[in-house]
């Protein structure tokens, strides 16, 4: 029995259906299909082998390959160091930009620009104009200092990818943290001044704790996006040399769209989902637990 009130709302309730169907169709169902594919042996470029059921065969073969663990390590290293650098630099720049002086708005605007530049362009500009050992700024500076230029991409591919992603994401962290600093009530800062707190103490003991919420949001959102880094690697190092700068998304892409081994690629994708969920839950728990402790 549907009551009159329920019927009146059924039209409003149904507004959620189109969005639900589309998102389910394009994200949830494909994940389930990925799960199904991951127990099949299916190499697209070897039609002679056919498609056969292999159970956990793909998982065993992925997990018994040391390369996979190297890639997991790369992903963790890339994500953790980028987020750490972005938080530290974001705080630094947010503190600097949280001042009033002539032109500060223009300066802020220029500073946040890298966040809106696409991965492909970031990769290309840094690879050529900035870091190229002979003709990039890298080569020019080395020449001016009389030093041999450093081949960043060749010798430090992982470091270079981290540098680029940090350059892109620091402005995002800075924007959120700056909004935090601007929301601190003036009275609190005033009373700190009256109590004779110096600038360093004000920052460490008042300003940073006051924006804990903003730091959490920046880290959580940053984590979700930085775990998926793909374009920057694609155009700069292509994951190499070897798999030195390959992360999980790039490995799945290589396996699925270069080696066309769909069984293995989907098994890796499922493992990526599991690891991503574990990482995000762990960070979320840590953040929430800490927030509770502060409240108590």
């Amino acid at each position, binding site marked *: 029995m549907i009551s009159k009130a329920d019927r009146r709302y059924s039209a409003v309730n149904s507004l959620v259906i189109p969005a639900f169907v589309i*998102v389910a169709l394009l994200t949830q169902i494909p994940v389930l299909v990925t799960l199904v594919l991951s127990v099949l042996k299916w190499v697209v470029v070897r039609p002679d082998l056919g498609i056969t059921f292999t159970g956990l065969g793909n998982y065993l073969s992925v997990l018994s390959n040391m390369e996979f663990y190297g890639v997991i390590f790369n992903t963790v290293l890339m994500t953790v160091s980028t987020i750490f650098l972005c938080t530290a630099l974001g705080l630094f720049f947010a503190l600097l930009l949280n001042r009033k002086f002539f032109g500060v708005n223009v300066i802020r605007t220029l500073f946040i620009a890298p966040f809106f530049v696409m991965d492909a362009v970031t990769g290309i500009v840094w690879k050529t104009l900035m870091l190229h050992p002979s003709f990039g700024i890298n080569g020019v500076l080395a020449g001016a200092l009389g030093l041999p230029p450093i081949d960043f991409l060749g010798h430090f591919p992982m470091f270079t990818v981290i540098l680029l992603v940090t350059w892109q994401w620091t402005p995002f962290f800075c924007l959120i943290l700056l909004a935090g600093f601007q929301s601190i009530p003036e009275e609190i800062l005033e009373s700190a001044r009256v109590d004779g707190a110096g600038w360093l103490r004000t920052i460490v003991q008042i300003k940073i704790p006051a924006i804990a919420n903003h730091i959490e949001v920046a880290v959580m959102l940053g984590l979700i996006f930085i775990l998926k880094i793909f374009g920057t690697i694609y155009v700069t190092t292509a994951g190499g040399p070897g798999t030195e700068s390959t992360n999980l998304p790039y490995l799945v892409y290589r396996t699925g769209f270069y080696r066309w081994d769909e069984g293995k690629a989907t098994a890796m994708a499922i493992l*990526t989902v599991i690891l991503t969920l574990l990482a995000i839950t762990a960070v979320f728990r840590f953040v929430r637990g800490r927030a509770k402790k502060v409240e108590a």
Partner: protein
Amino acid sequence: MNSLTLSATQKKTLRVFANTVIVVLCLTYFFPIFYMFLTSFKSEADTVPPKLFFTPTIENYQAVFTSDIFRHILNSFIITLSATVICIVLGVPAAYAIVFGRLKKADSLYFWFLSTLILPAVSVIVPVFLVYKVLGMLDTHWGLIWIYVGANVPIVVWMVRAFLKDIPLELLEAAEIDGASRLRSFYLIVLPLTKSGIISTALLVFIFVWNEFFFAVSLTYIDASTIPVYMASFMTQEGFFWAKLSAISTVTVLPPLILGWISHKSLVRGLMMGAVKG
């Protein structure tokens, strides 16, 4: 203590010094983009090796707008605009139903939308590729548009829900007494009130879709490929035409850059509201 207290002039000097340091640091941070812009006006001969002084030329930009690069920019516009509009048309009513409807499991539905944001793109790509292949949707505008809709509707639901939560329920109840149904209140009351929030959400989706690389490179090749895919292939094929590369890059980053500059304040507010209103 007295020796530590600065005079007014000293304070002023210190402030000017600090401000100068900030300006220099931020300009250095921006330098790669500035340098790209500068190089786009050089001739190739002035680019490699880089010359400090050069006669500006617009030949690189002429090349951009005469060749098939223009087609990829057009692809990007078609796909990004369509995906953004569809995301808003689907996402905003869904958020309204979640906040002001009488859904039994409104909260779990909301968290379901959020959970899809966490899913890595690689977990859907192989099935989507295979289905698109069967349906003939590989390398088509609609193929990319739909996957972008699926990926970004949750962002719209997430952000718009936060904006809607700011509207007092009493307002809608009062409208109901005046005879406006919950459905009519949606466009009579709620849409006008949340207009700016919806616009900033749309701008964010536009920026994300315009810059997206993974789906674009996996699902399109020639006909429907967007500008980031073209950039990457240009890089491998003609990687040494740096001036031309800079001109294309400049054109490519301008739309999201301008939108980002216009909207970053409301974007941050939207992100924070979405994250805090659990």
